C-alpha cells in the first residue's frame, strides 16, 4: 500500500541503524509515547537492531490500558441495564473489570456491539428508538474528533437516545508527569504522530524547553521509528532539546484546526485517573455542560465502585519507563493476555502484551534458566 510499504524497506532501515551506531557515544534512554509505536518496535524487533547504548522504554500511550478499573466497571454496570445497547471499539471487549469483561457479558445475552466508528452508533440509535445507545468513548486526542462529532451530530439531528461514557486522556500532561517524577529515566521522546496530526506540536515545545528533553514527533512504520530515534540521538549527542517533526507527511505544527475547533466545542479539560499511574491533573476530556443530555455518566446512576488492583503488577512503573515487562515476576506466568493482572497486559498495544505476543517471555525464561545453570 502506498505510504506504508516504502516505510518498511530493510536497506533503508539498516542504513539508519548504521548512522545511529556511528553517532552514539554514551547510553541514552528514549521513550516512545504511543502504544502503536511500542507494538511496531517489538513486532519488527527494532530495539534489537539498535546499539546497546540506546534503551527504548515504553510510554503510557495506550488508552485501553490506562482506562481506570472504576470506569470499566461503570461501563459494565451501564451495559447490563436492559434498556441499553452498549457500543464499543473492539479492543475494549477483552479488558477485564473487577468481575467480567464485555465479551463475557455479551455471551450472557447483554446487548454489546462492536463498532468501527462512533458515528455508526447514531445509525443504531435511529434504528432502535426504544433503546438507549451508549458508546464507550475512550482514546487520546487522535480519537477525540471522531467522538466529538458523534455527540455533535446527535445533538444537531435530535437523536436523544444516544450518549457517550467519556474516558478521554491527553498525552502532554502524562509526559510532564513522567518527567517530574524523581525516578524518571527518560532523556528523549519519540512523540505521538497521530495525536499530533490532530493537535499539532506547539504544546510540546514548553515541555521540551522546561525539562530540557528532545521530543521528535514520529510515525509508526519501522523506518519512521528508526529515523525518529536517529533524530533524537542526534539532538542528545549535540546537547540540544527541541521539538522536531519526523512525520511531516501528515503532521504540521498547527495540527488540524477544524478538528480542534469541534473537540473544544464538545469537550473540556478535566482531571483524569490513569490505570497504573493514578490521577493526573488536567489530563482528560469530559463533555461540556451543553451536551449533558448525551453524557452517559450523568444519565445512568451507577453506585460508587470499589476496585482492587493486583499487588504483583508493576504496570505503573512500566508505563513510566522505570521498568521493562520482563522485570516483573508475574510476566508470562500469573499474568498473560488471557489473564491480565494490570494495565500494560490488557490491550495488544500495552508493552507487556506486545512483549508477550512476540515471544519475549520465552526469552526471559531462557535467560533465567541460563543464569541459574551458570550460578
Amino acid at each position, binding site marked *: *500500500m502506498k*505510504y*506504508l510499504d*516504502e516505510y518498511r524497506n530493510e536497506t533503508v532501515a539498516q542504513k539508519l541503524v548504521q548512522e545511529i551506531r556511528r553517532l552514539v557515544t554514551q547510553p541514552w534512554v528514549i521513550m516512545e509515547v504511543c502504544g502503536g509505536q511500542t507494538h511496531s518496535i517489538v513486532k519488527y524487533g527494532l530495539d534489537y537492531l539498535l546499539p546497546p547504548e540506546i534503551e527504548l522504554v515504553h510510554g503510557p500511550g495506550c488508552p485501553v490500558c490506562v482506562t481506570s478499573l472504576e470506569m470499566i466497571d461503570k461501563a459494565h454496570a451501564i451495559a447490563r441495564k436492559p434498556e441499553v445497547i452498549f457500543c464499543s471499539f473492539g479492543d475494549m471487549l477483552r479488558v477485564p473489570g473487577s468481575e467480567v469483561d464485555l465479551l463475557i457479558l455479551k455471551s450472557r445475552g447483554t446487548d454489546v456491539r462492536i463498532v468501527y466508528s462512533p458515528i455508526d452508533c447514531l445509525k443504531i440509535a435511529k434504528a432502535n428508538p426504544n433503546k438507549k445507545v451508549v458508546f464507550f468513548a475512550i482514546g487520546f486526542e487522535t*480519537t477525540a474528533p471522531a467522538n466529538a*462529532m458523534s455527540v455533535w451530530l446527535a445533538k444537531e439531528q435530535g437523536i436523544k437516545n444516544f450518549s457517550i461514557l467519556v474516558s478521554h486522556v491527553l498525552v502532554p500532561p502524562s509526559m510532564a508527569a513522567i518527567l517530574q517524577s524523581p525516578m524518571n529515566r527518560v532523556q528523549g521522546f519519540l512523540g505521538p504522530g497521530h495525536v499530533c*496530526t490532530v493537535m499539532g506540536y506547539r504544546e510540546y515545545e514548553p515541555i521540551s524547553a522546561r525539562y530540557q528533553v528532545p521530543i521528535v514527533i514520529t510515525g509508526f512504520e519501522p523506518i519512521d521509528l528508526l529515523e525518529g530515534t536517529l533524530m533524537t540521538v542526534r539532538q542528545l549527542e549535540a546537547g540540544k532539546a527541541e521539538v522536531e517533526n519526523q512525520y511531516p507527511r*501528515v503532521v504540521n505544527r498547527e495540527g*488540524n484546526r477544524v478538528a480542534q475547533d469541534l473537540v473544544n466545542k464538545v469537550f473540556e479539560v478535566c482531571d483524569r485517573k490513569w490505570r497504573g499511574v493514578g490521577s493526573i491533573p488536567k489530563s482528560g476530556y469530559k463533555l461540556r455542560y451543553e451536551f449533558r443530555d448525551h453524557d452517559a455518566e450523568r444519565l445512568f446512576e451507577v453506585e460508587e465502585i470499589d476496585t482492587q488492583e493486583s499487588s504483583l503488577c508493576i504496570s505503573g512503573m512500566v508505563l513510566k519507563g522505570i521498568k521493562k515487562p520482563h522485570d516483573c515476576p508475574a510476566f508470562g506466568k500469573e499474568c498473560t493476555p488471557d489473564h491480565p493482572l494490570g494495565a500494560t497486559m490488557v490491550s495488544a498495544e500495552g508493552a507487556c502484551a506486545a512483549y508477550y505476543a512476540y515471544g519475549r517471555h520465552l526469552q526471559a525464561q531462557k535467560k533465567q534458566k541460563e543464569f541459574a545453570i551458570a550460578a
Partner: protein
Amino acid sequence: MCLAIPGQVLEIQELEGVKMGRTNFGGIVKRVCLEYTPEVQVGDYVLVHVGFALSKVDEAEAIRTYKILEEMQQLSELEVAEVESSAETKRSSP
C-alpha cells in the same frame, strides 16, 4: 488504538449533511467522514482513524522525506560495493 492508515479517496458524497468519501485502503473500500479535511479532493490520500480522515497526506513532504531516505539507501549500496571489491566497476544506479 491511535492506529491510522492512509487510503485514497475515490468519490465524495454528502450523506445527511455530512461530507463522506468512499476510500480505498489497498483494495478494501470503506466510507469515511471527510468533515475534518474540507480541502480533500477525489484522488487525494487521507490518513484515516476510526472512520474519520484526520489529515490529507502531503505528497510533497512524503516524496521529500523518502528522497532523503533513498539517498541514504544508495549511499549504503555504494559503501557495500566498495567493501565487496574496490576493483569492481561501479554499478549503474537503478
